[in-house]
Structure formats: structure tokens, C-alpha cells
């Protein structure tokens, strides 16, 4: 059974992801997507279906630990994951996925991406070609690990400050 996935993100945060990819070009950037997923809300609120099923509300940029091959590989250690989790919880959010860039490559997951992926997370990829950000896509690993399913990205206008 297939399921249509959608990730909602503000235009402002989408710009920040692209900017991170440009900053680290020609190396891959990476970071955590912090937000809420309707299926696992920390506050277990009853879901208002006008609200997005999964929404990115903050970013936690990280340092690519693959300093041996940063142009085509990224790595986030367990310690980085724990730091991202802690930062998310401090904001009343959770880690809902990860972003990274593909320098001079399409924003499509590679076999290497798939082999190392976790289910459930949203994986946002931004293509940065010649230092200019281009396509940004999002993907989720299928339950049987056979392939990724592309996730629609819904971009909001800049959210009102709280």
C-alpha cells in the first residue's frame, strides 16, 4: 500500500537549507530537521487536520564529519544525533529528519543514501550546482528498505514570529 507523504516547511527555512549548501560548497552540508509529526506529537494533542501532518519548524545545522570525503559523503555521529534530539526537546520539538546537499549532483538519493537510511525520517536533499542552489527534494525510505518514496514539499510563507 503506498502512502502520499508531505513535508511542510517555511520558505525561510528552505532558504536556510539552501544557504548552508552554498556555504559548504563544494563539500556536502548536513543538518537536522526539527519539527512535529502528527503521529508522534510529544504533547499528544488531538490532530487538527488543518495542521500539516509533518512540519519542519527549526533547523539544527551540523558539521559534516566525513572530512576524508566531504565532496560526496556526509556523516552525522551518534553524539550529533543526541545533541540534535536535546536541542529539539528544549524547543518542544523532535528530530523529524535530516538534510544534506549534493554538490554538482541532482537532488536525488543515491544508493549510498539508501543503504544508510533510517525509515520514518524525512531526508531533504538540495542540489548545489557550481555554488548555486537548485532543486530541493525530500524522501522517505520504504518500510521494506527497497527504495525511497519522494515526499512532496509544501512551502509556507514565512511564519509569524512567536
Amino acid at each position, binding site marked *: 500500500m503506498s502512502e502520499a507523504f508531505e513535508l511542510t516547511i517555511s520558505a525561510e527555512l528552505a532558504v536556510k537549507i539552501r544557504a548552508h549548501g552554498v556555504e559548504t560548497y563544494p563539500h*556536502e552540508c*548536513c543538518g537536522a530537521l526539527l519539527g512535529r509529526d502528527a*503521529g*508522534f506529537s510529544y504533547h499528544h494533542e488531538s490532530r487538527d487536520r488543518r495542521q500539516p501532518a509533518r512540519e519542519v519548524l527549526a533547523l539544527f545545522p551540523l558539521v559534516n564529519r*566525513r572530512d576524508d*570525503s566531504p565532496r*560526496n*559523503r*556526509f*556523516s*552525522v*555521529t*551518534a553524539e*550529533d*544525533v*543526541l545533541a540534535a534530539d536535546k536541542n529539539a526537546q528544549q524547543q518542544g520539538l*523532535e*528530530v523529524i529528519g*535530516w538534510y*544534506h546537499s*549534493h*554538490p554538482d*549532483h541532482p537532488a536525488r*538519493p*543515491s*544508493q*549510498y*543514501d539508501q543503504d*544508510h*537510511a*533510517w*525509515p*520514518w*525520517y524525512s*531526508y531533504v536533499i538540495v542540489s548545489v550546482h557550481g555554488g548555486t542552489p537548485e532543486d530541493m527534494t525530500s524522501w522517505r525510505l520504504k*518500510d*521494506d*528498505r527497497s527504495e525511497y518514496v519522494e515526499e512532496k514539499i509544501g512551502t509556507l510563507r514565512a511564519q509569524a514570529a512567536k
Partner: protein
Amino acid sequence: MAVKVIIPTPLRTYAGKRDSTDVNASTVGDALGGLTSQFADLRKHLFTDDGKLRAFVNVYLNDEDIRYLAKENTPTKDGDTISIVPSIAGGCNH
């Protein structure tokens, strides 16, 4: 030994949305086996086809990475907590 296993967010869908479960185990390996016996769909995300823990799956006994202990043979005691923590990796095709 009664041990608590913390289930990371990306795997909770396969564990009835639970964030932890209790197992009886005398080693970390036994605890992970107990976990995947309870929730069979977890197995393919934690282990390779030949039964090895996937490289991007980190397992902590209390605050220590089992790689620096006795790995899956690390003994457990009552009240221990085992945490499964992801590493994240990827990159372009090259």
C-alpha cells in the same frame, strides 16, 4: 535481568509507537533479540541479512557505547537501560 530498551523515533512505528520496552536479558545481544522477538519488523532496520548489527546503529548500555565494552556480549543487570541511537550518513553517487 530486567532491562529497558529505548526505541528511537524512526523505529517506533514498528514497535506499536512505543518509545521503550522492557525485556529480560543477560546480555545486550539477548536484549536486542528480545526486542526483535517482540517487534519483528524492527529486525531488518537493526540487522543486516547475515545477522550483524548495521554499522549506523549505535547501541549504548546506560551511557556507554557497547563498541567499547564487550559489544553484544556485554552483560546487563537489573535496571539497566539500553539505548539505540542512529548515526546518519549519505552522499552523492560518485
